[in-house]
């Protein structure tokens, strides 16, 4: 009878299991498994849990310069996961309260049904548990109402984007209450941009998308 996965994992992590040791002395298959798992644990422990910082923006600029490509930042198909860890911690510190009541504002009957904002990516999101909705008002104002976003280390920016072509358009920033009413510029067809994206931006003087997306919704049409 071979060792169970659970036993091998525990032993690889350093728990003393004399019965297992007796078994692996005689069983090359289990000894091999154990050695591979233990080597992985050693490697992980040598590096620690700090995570990898993202490459500096200068690296991407050099690549696009050298190859003569358009210098837009990579489309954030998959936000940088290592930043998610920091966000989870930040999320514990403060939550931004959600919807503000539109008391006293002129009545803007929504022209379109609202679409729902969902955290991105599906695994390891920047803002797990955040929700909200987006609608397009009759005066071509995009109304964004997000709830449960962690207080940002920077600010949130709202974009229209087309993940397939990489085209994107910055509409404006999200207020402290997680909401914004942002006019869509004259001449822009929202149907050219199937996705509304809420990104986390730093005040770093770089007007392009940071590559870190918190929420996305289909564009309301």
């Amino acid at each position: 009878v071979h060792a169970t996965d659970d036993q091998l994992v525990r032993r690889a992590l350093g728990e003393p299991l004399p019965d297992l040791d007796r078994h692996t002395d005689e069983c090359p298959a289990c000894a091999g498994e154990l050695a591979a798992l233990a080597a992985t644990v050693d490697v992980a422990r040598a590096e620690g849990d700090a995570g990898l910082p993202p490459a500096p923006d200068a690296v991407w600029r050099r690549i696009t310069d050298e190859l003569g490509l358009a210098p837009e930042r990579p489309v954030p198909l998959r936000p940088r996961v290592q930043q998610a860890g920091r966000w989870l911690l930040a999320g514990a510190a403060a939550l931004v309260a959600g919807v503000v009541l539109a008391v006293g504002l002129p009545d803007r009957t929504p022209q379109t049904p609202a679409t729902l904002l969902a955290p991105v990516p599906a695994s390891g999101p920047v803002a797990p548990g955040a929700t909200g909705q987006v609608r397009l008002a009759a005066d071509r104002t995009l109304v964004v109402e997000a709830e449960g976003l962690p207080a940002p280390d920077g600010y949130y920016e709202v974009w229209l984007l087309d993940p397939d072509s990489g085209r994107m358009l910055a509409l404006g920033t999200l207020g402290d209450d997680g909401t914004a009413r942002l006019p869509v510029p004259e001449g822009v067809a929202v149907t050219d941009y199937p996705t509304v994206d809420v990104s986390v931006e730093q005040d770093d003087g770089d007007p392009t998308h940071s590559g870190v997306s918190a929420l996305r919704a289909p564009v309301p049409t």
Partner: protein
Amino acid sequence: VTPLVSARRLDDDSALAEAFRAGDERALREAYERWSGLVHAFCRRSLPSAADAEEAAAQVFVSAWRGRHTFDPGRGSVCGWLLGIARNEVVGRHRKAARERELRESLAAALPRPAPSPDELVDRLLVADELARLTPEQRRAVGLAFFDDLTHEQVAAVMGLPLGTVKSHIRRGLTTLRRRLEVDRGARD
């Protein structure tokens, strides 16, 4: 230019490899988005200056893009290929630095040997990168077991999760890390 595959499908590794080989620029962007942190960390830890590391990391992607037709998916992953290029880039820079130093000092200068070795460094960074990609709960469980040396039972108590869940998080987490090492190790001489 008509995109060959939809951006969403690029999430899939083999589709990314195919699009990359075919010269779809979005595949370059996606590869950069996924692995630039890893490649840059490797260069940064292997080279003495931050400027050198940026230059080397950029050069890895430039070389990969220009040599994309040489990528053979049968011989490894895109990530492993990039790390192999990164190793060559770093080794080449060390050799050049050593030659320049010899000319200057006319004595055999010791190479600034990065500790750990490039192979160990690649392994460590791959694991760190994969750890960051685990689900938050899995990552926490693995972190407590690996770095805080808690037993499975203690992890369960700390996280307020059933022991079975914790066992499965740690087992799957460790298996994922191991697989990543096996799949993505850079090309080795």
